[in-house]
């Protein structure tokens, strides 16, 4: 009998679902939970996904996070500059973090405060501007709170729906923000004006809890589903193969 899924495992499966149906494209997960998730998707329902070892190799077999693999089946070479080629060619779906995200999916990973003289310098823009206007993007926010889900992001790194629409066709042409997965819920932008919507709640989480932790109004459908539970086979893969050291637990707040 498999032990019941913990929250971090529910999150892994919810993140994995972001890549369902993507086929033969590069899945680029940022962070532990998204990495385990992308590898899980490839090992189960999305076998054609292309994954790297986090460095320059495309690897065919499922690798564990946080420890050296026994064997890497290297099927290709993808140094950083080739990643940009793939990215601009659109054959990629990234799952990034978001220090801040707003109602229309604008994301900030650059800094907190005024960019000219930030209160807290963070990573910088990284690839967020290019990612969001070139191919599908999803987000993983391990601590669903009003600090992260804000009315207005301090800096727009990743372009959201409203900003893209205001900018014009070059921004909207390949723009596709898919899912926002948090420790409480799965959210999307499947609404007439692309404002954020609750898609499913993780087991035991209420709508009020999610709304309370969000700094803007969320669209809440009437027939709100529960985030699907991991299957026994998914739990086995996560626990025994993809994350045997349990690194995922430290990322989920």
């Amino acid at each position, binding site marked *: 009998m498999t032990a019941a899924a913990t929250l971090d495992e529910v999150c892994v499966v919810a993140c994995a679902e972001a890549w369902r149906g993507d086929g033969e494209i590069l899945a680029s997960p940022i962070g532990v939970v998204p990495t385990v998730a992308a590898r899980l998707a490839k090992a189960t329902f999305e076998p054609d996904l292309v994954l790297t070892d986090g460095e320059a190799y495309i690897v065919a077999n499922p690798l564990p996070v946080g420890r050296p693999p026994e064997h890497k089946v290297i099927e290709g070479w993808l140094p950083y500059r080739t990643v940009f080629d793939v990215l601009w060619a659109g054959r990629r779906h990234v799952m990034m973090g978001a220090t801040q995200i707003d109602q229309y999916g604008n994301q900030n990973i650059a800094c907190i405060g005024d960019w000219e003289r930030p209160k807290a310098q963070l990573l910088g823009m990284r690839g*967020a501007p290019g990612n969001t206007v070139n191919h599908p993007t999803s987000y993983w926010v391990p601590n669903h709170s009003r600090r992260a889900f804000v009315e207005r992001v301090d800096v727009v790194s990743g372009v959201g729906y409203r900003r893209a629409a205001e900018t014009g066709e070059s921004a909207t042409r390949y723009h596709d923000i898919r899912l926002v997965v948090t420790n409480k819920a799965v959210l999307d932008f499947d609404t007439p004006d692309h404002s954020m919507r609750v898609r499913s709640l993780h087991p035991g989480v209420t709508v009020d809890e999610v709304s309370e932790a969000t700094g803007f109004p969320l669209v809440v459908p009437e027939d709100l589903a529960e985030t699907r539970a991991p299957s026994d086979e998914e739990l086995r893969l996560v626990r025994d193969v993809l994350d045997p050291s349990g690194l995922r637990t430290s990322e989920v707040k």
Partner: protein
Amino acid sequence: MADKRTTEDEVVAELADGMTVGIGGWGSRRKPMSLVRAILRSDVKDLTIVSYGGPDVGLLCAAGRVRKVIYGFVSLDSIPLEPHFRAARQSGAVDAMELDEGMFQWGLYAAALRLPFLPTRAGIGSDVMRINPELATVTSPYDGEELVAVPALSLDVALVHMNRADAGGNGQFLGPDPYFDDLFCMAARRRFLSCERLVPTDDLLKEGPVQSLRINRMMTDGVVEAPHGAHFTSCDPDYERDEDFQRLYATAAGDPEAWATFERTYLQLPSEAEYQAAVRAS
């Protein structure tokens, strides 16, 4: 074939205050750190640093040598945020040009090809356009699409570190990723390459396949043999990142006294050889 062998200090003697210096590698990976340390031993200042930033940016900021940083990110990889760079940004000590990291590549490539700009969608709609008011867009003459015109990031000097090189300045990477070092060299007026080991030209292909000869001598003006020159960043496959040392570096950043000790122990030394000896003794 000209003999381009030189030393870190001779390379830095070619730098002048106010220059724009491109530094190869990526984050905390294969950085020409012995050349960066040589800058710290000199009195060169007011530099504009162009980098896929790591501790190169952090060290130069901490030493007050930087007027402006041009970057897409600055990170120590295993430690996501670069503490010295953060401090410099938060205190307003440095100016910044922050780009999408793909735009950054395009800027180097434009400079390499002697073009004023290269077009891309990356950046459109984001605050990259707001925080860099000098960035302009162009309209495609073919279909009217509006694209970002990434300006050439032309460099006075490029500094890169390779695994192997010959005395003529042909450079070879042996790890899995060439990063953008060839573009840094091509974007610069003066180009300097350090390497783990100098080998005779005829031995280069004994070290790795022909595809690993990413830098050719048309792209370099000087070559420095610098064993462990990328320390404490990684130099795959010669050595991994020195994570303990990087942690020491990052932790010391938070405490003026600890930083003063770090500087005294590792940076305020008369030569690269003494740095390497101090690291071995630690």
